[in-house]
């Protein structure tokens, strides 16, 4: 080992564009013009999807105008429908803010925001039908909000109190809401990607007309189940949309670590023989359009599709994380694709359907609404002021029927 050669192979180690103390730097990102890409036919194959996988579908330009073929494809979305989306994004952000605060006050053990990524879930959910199922990660609460999930249940889960449909069993943010198309979230990254494929296979086998959507973070695309998911989707071609939320970070790890030498996550999916698109995830209209297209393709039986949503994780990874230790403080502000709420606001104002005043008003309203529910939910117990839950409930639901050894353990509990 001692006679090291000076030339020859060395390992590469991916680095983010900037570290703390340096200036945020996204200059090397190649951000295509809004409106540059056309709308492929729904039955497109992976080979033909190349420009969409390497490029980026964008609708809103810097002036907030909806431009290009995808703007046409989205079609005449009413002001009201766009405002609904806006409100859901704002609601998601308000919930995130309040829950983050609650965690800081010790009222819950953990929280995790999706700041900057709200457009993706909100826009996507709007294109689904009842019966369709998302297999979300912990950062897709925007899907739930857009599905109209009662805030009481959503917050009850965070506080693990009697509003919690999961009876306190799961870590905050690991929701489960079948009726709202939200599969039980796993804390283990990746696992659910291939489950989404299995669910979609069941849809195809039973011809129920429903579709499934897998979700995964950029970092978690490194996991084995990402591969399993793409592979089985490629082999059986069930009605599934495989979403990749590339928010540039995986806790402290820059997205380059999982991307390696690949061009884009979408292009890696394309290697599996699955058509793939890359989309500006901070552009609500692009999300609406691409989700509409993908849902139509998949539901019609043209096979799976992969979508890389290009975005940025504005907040800390979770309440256990401190991003100032690994990235420049101003990086979020420098993100070239801006903020999804701001961009939709600009568009709506440009359209004449919105104003700064109405926006501020709505924000206040939503905060109020969220705060009211929060108060009510907190009155049923928080971590600083917990209301006892039966310890016997731990042993319930491990099996459909409680087997003898669990009955013995319950007796042992003395409850």
């Amino acid at each position, binding site marked *: 080992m001692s006679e090291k050669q000076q030339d020859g192979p060395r390992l590469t180690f991916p680095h983010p564009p900037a570290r703390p103390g340096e200036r945020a730097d996204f200059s090397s990102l190649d951000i295509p013009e809004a409106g540059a890409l056309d709308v492929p036919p729904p039955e497109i194959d992976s080979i033909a999807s190349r420009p969409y996988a390497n490029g980026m579908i964008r609708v809103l330009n810097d002036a907030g105008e909806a431009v290009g073929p995808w703007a046409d494809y989205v079609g005449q979305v009413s002001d009201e429908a766009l405002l609904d989306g806006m409100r859901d994004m704002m609601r998601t952000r308000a919930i995130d803010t309040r829950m983050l605060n609650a965690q800081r006050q010790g009222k819950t053990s953990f929280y995790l925001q999706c700041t900057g990524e709200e457009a993706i879930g909100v826009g996507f959910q709007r294109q689904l039908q009842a019966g369709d199922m998302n297999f979300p990660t912990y950062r897709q609460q925007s899907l739930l909000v857009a599905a109209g999930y009662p805030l009481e249940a959503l917050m009850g889960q965070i506080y693990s109190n009697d509003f919690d449909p999961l009876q306190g069993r799961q870590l905050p943010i690991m929701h489960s809401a079948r009726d709202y198309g939200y599969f039980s979230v796993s804390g283990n990254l990746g696992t659910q990607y291939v489950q989404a*494929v*299995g669910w979609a296979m069941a849809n195809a086998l039973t011809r129920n007309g429903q579709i499934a959507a897998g979700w995964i973070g950029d970092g978690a695309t490194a996991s084995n189940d990402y591969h399993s998911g793409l592979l089985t989707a490629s082999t059986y071609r069930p009605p599934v949309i495989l979403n990749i939320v590339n928010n540039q970070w995986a806790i402290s790890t820059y997205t380059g670590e999982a991307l390696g030498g690949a061009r884009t996550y979408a292009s890696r999916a394309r290697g599996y023989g699955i058509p793939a698109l890359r989309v500006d995830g901070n552009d609500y209209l692009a999300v609406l359009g691409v989700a509409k297209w993908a849902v139509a393709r998949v539901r019609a039986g043209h096979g799976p599709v992969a979508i890389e949503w290009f975005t940025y994780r504005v907040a800390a990874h979770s309440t256990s994380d401190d991003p100032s230790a690994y990235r420049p403080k101003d990086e979020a502000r420098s993100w070239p694709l801006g903020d999804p709420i701001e961009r939709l606001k600009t568009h709506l104002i440009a359209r004449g359907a919105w104003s700064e005043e109405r926006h501020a008003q709505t924000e206040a309203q939503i905060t109020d609404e969220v705060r009211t529910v929060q108060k009510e939910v907190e009155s049923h117990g928080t971590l600083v002021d917990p209301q006892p839950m039966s310890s016997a409930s731990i042993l319930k639901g491990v099996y*459909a029927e409680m087997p003898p050894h669990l009955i013995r353990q319950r007796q042992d509990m003395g409850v």
Partner: protein
Amino acid sequence: MTMIEALRSAMDVMLARDERVVIFGEDVGYFGGVFRCTQGLQKKYGEERVFDTPINESAIAGMAIGMAAQGMRPCAEIQFADYMYPAYDQITQEAARIRHRSNGDFTCPLTIRMPTGGGIYGGQTHSQSPEALFTHVAGLKVVQPSTPYDAKGLLIASIEDPDPVIFLEPKRLYNGPFDGDHTATSQGWAQHPAGDVPEEYYRIDLGKASVRREGAALTILAYGTMVFVAERAVRDTGVDAEIIDLRTLLPLDLETIRASVEKTGRCLVLHEATRTSGFGGELIAEVQEACFWHLEAPIVRVTGWDAPYPHAQEWDYFPGPKRAARGIARVMEA
């Protein structure tokens, strides 16, 4: 029927009875599986019910979980238990937990079949007995039959079970009983009463052990191939042992075990898996706690050695009737 035929019959019956049942795994479809357990089923029920998969055990489990959660009753095959490890994450962290973590919002009624155990010169990657890796996992059920009759009834009950079941098939028993004497000419199941298997539907409830031999001198706990090794060792030693075939390892039929050990006061545990932290440890812990005041001797276990299953030293590794007899002697002497 052989055990292979009995398993096939169970799947056949369930495919016919319940359209939610689907069968898949590596080489399982067109070919009918490397042990031919699913032979003819694709032809009979079509590719949508019985199909081949890519070689990815975690994908097999993951697909099964998704299908099960969406209301189907998948029965998947892992080609050898030795290849379940890539699926271990999906099985233990997902299948076993979905009902509990979602508070019943989603459930996971699936069965995963896998051939287990040695005795076929399969070497270390075709001989493993990983049952203890499943019995440690709350939310799973773990089954291992030792006869064609039980295999069919238990597999039907597993497929019908509302929770995930790991179904371990002692491959050395696929074609006939085996008492550990590899020099003897092998017997088929046709000669054995438990080879008499009805064509139609029947089930054997999970969680119930079967007393294979009544006896007063000691209790032998065994499952799979080791049940026949126990029978042979009892014949060889002439000790009046009670032999219990556990059949379901999780949940365990502790009542049947307790009644027996309280009667005999002595207990021997047999398994083929490596000794340390094997399922034998669990059995002993439960028996000594439940029956301490009745025990007249330490409980002894006879197991595989703590090493990978070697190819050439197959019969030195396999805990055959001689070692079982030594175990009986140790329990009886004490």
